[in-house]
């Protein structure tokens, strides 16, 4: 009798609540918060544009239509070092290649490198971090001390060391950059698993008979996915930067392909005679990195329920 009573009233209440307002989903609420962050929206728009450019260039290349004003890899020594003008918007480099076309073409490589490198470090990092955080004890100590050693070496140096072992080339650079940032993901994941693991719902999952792997994948990881996504977004920007650095040192993409860091590195001899050959690739790198950073920061705020506007 008494029970029916409460059931009814609860139901009435739920219906009443539904009538006046549909509870917002977490995703929608997140989007609302994100939308109010101007910087994050700007970041997102730039990222979308960059992605659009990269995909268009890539597809046009595949089907053999030239949509860029010039072939980015076609050199014509008679046209070297033309200052920016109506014909060559960003000017031409020492080999007479059109800089605008090369920078647009470079978007493809930079984004590819950023996303792939993060995918590598993310998958290995999350796996190692989960095992370390969940198992604890000796496993944890072994994994995390290895990560500490990796973190103790400057990342670019470590990437160069990996490159030395793997050899030159863009694919090798991607792997090197991916491997280098594994510890960051492993640490973040381990830390959050340690705190989420203590939640009653994880204990409850064990009481009802869940096995370890199901607890990790079904009950723990979904609750820290937001953190990982934020870190990955910021990670793309540092991967873009690292590729540029490797390119600058001549270890990344091999000529004649266009890559911003490589362009920067090759142009450094002409800093006084043709400064625009440095400035435009530099701006391209800055904008990309900035866009991912702005978006990543906004995402972090949006995913943090405490900073959400009620």
């Amino acid at each position, binding site marked *: 009798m*008494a029970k029916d*009573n*409460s059931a009814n*009233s*609860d139901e*009435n*209440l739920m219906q*009443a*609540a539904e009538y*006046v*307002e549909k509870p917002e989903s977490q995703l929608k609420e997140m989007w609302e918060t994100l939308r109010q962050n101007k910087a994050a929206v700007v970041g997102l728009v730039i990222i979308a544009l960059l992605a659009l450019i990269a995909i268009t260039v890539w597809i046009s290349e595949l089907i053999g239509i030239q949509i860029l004003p010039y072939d980015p890899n076609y050199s014509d020594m008679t046209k070297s070092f033309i200052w920016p003008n109506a014909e060559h918007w960003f000017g031409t480099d020492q080999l007479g290649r059109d800089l605008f076309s090369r920078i647009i073409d470079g978007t493809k490589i930079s984004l590819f490198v950023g996303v792939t490198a993060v995918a590598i470090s993310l998958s290995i990092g999350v796996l190692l971090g989960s095992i370390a955080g969940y198992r604890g004890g000796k496993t944890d100590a072994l994994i995390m001390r290895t990560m500490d050693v990796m973190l103790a070496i400057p990342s670019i140096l470590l990437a160069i060391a990996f490159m030395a072992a793997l050899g030159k080339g863009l694919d090798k650079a991607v792997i090197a950059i991916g491997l280098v940032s594994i510890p960051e993901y492993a640490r973040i994941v381990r830390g959050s698993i340690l705190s989420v693991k203590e939640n009653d719902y994880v204990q409850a999952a064990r009481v009802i008979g869940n096995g370890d792997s199901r607890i990790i994948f079904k009950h723990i990881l979904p609750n820290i996915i937001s953190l990982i996504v934020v870190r990955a977004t910021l990670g793309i920007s540092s991967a873009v930067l690292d590729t540029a650095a490797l390119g600058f040192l001549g270890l990344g993409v091999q000529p004649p392909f266009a890559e911003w860091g490589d362009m920067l590195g090759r142009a450094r001899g002409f800093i006084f005679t043709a400064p625009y050959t440095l400035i435009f690739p530099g701006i391209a790198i800055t904008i990309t990195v900035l866009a991912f950073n702005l978006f990543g920061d906004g995402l972090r705020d949006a995913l943090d329920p405490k900073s959400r*506007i*009620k």
Partner: protein
Amino acid sequence: MLLEVKNLRTEFKLKRGTVRAVDDVSFTIDKGEILAIVGESGSGKSVTSLSLMGLIQKPGGVAGGEILFKSQDLSKLSQKELQEIRGNKISMIFQEPMTSLNPVWRIKDQIMENIMTHMKMSKKEALARTVEMLDTVGIPSPAERANDYPHQMSGGMRQRVMTAMALSCEPDLLIADEPTTALDVTIQAQILELLYQMREKFNMAVLLITHDLGVVYEAADRVIVMYCGKIVEEADVKTLFEQPQHPYTVGLLQSIPQIDNESDEHLFMIKGMVPNPLHMPPGCSFSDRCDRCMERCTKEMPELQEINGHKVRCFLYDKAEEGELSAK
């Protein structure tokens, strides 16, 4: 009369609407009196106490009313002037003795700082007073414990330290916001006893905010029951517990499992739950949970009426003929 609150309104402006957390609340506290405000979560009891101290954070704010403390309106003072009064004339102890103390400061430094900001005292005098206060609140070997850091003390000890700090400037009013909720029963008994002694010793008034009716019964002189931001009943402690009038108060009292209750029957329960503050039922805010709800209750909000010092906000009682509260 030490404190008089008149028609206090505190609102929170949220994106989805304005929540009136404290709605037209008026009460007084006399010198040396312990007044308890009871209510469940969302009743506005804590917001009331924070409003008194000018501690409401954005997007909230006091939207109206007067807070007369010794005939000075606190709601009109600047933050700086309030600072003068906070910790000096009015002090506060909070629910969480774990987080209310700064973990990187020694106990004595925290109390001394408070003393030195509000009273003209030298460092030496302030230290002497600190030790004296720690002794007053019953901390054994106070001179040594004064050098401890908060984490070296237990929950009960920390609440004593908080009390010592709050009392160190001999306030006229102590606001105790759920002072015993985080503590074990045997420690709760100690702290309530301490509040009692301190009241006797300093003749200060205490505003006790709690959800625990047992604590109220033991400690308070007068009780205010709040529900959804409004006062629904006010009476002295004996009257309230012996002749509760408002259906909410009656229900609350009946729903508590008592240790002197011998029956194995089901507990009385108030149906449903506290309404969403953005979607209050029309009329009386308790109408949707009330088992004596009448048609009128769902249309208009009853006024708080007073008869012989017993105030109640309910249509069941009318300012009736004989001048006595009586159920129709």
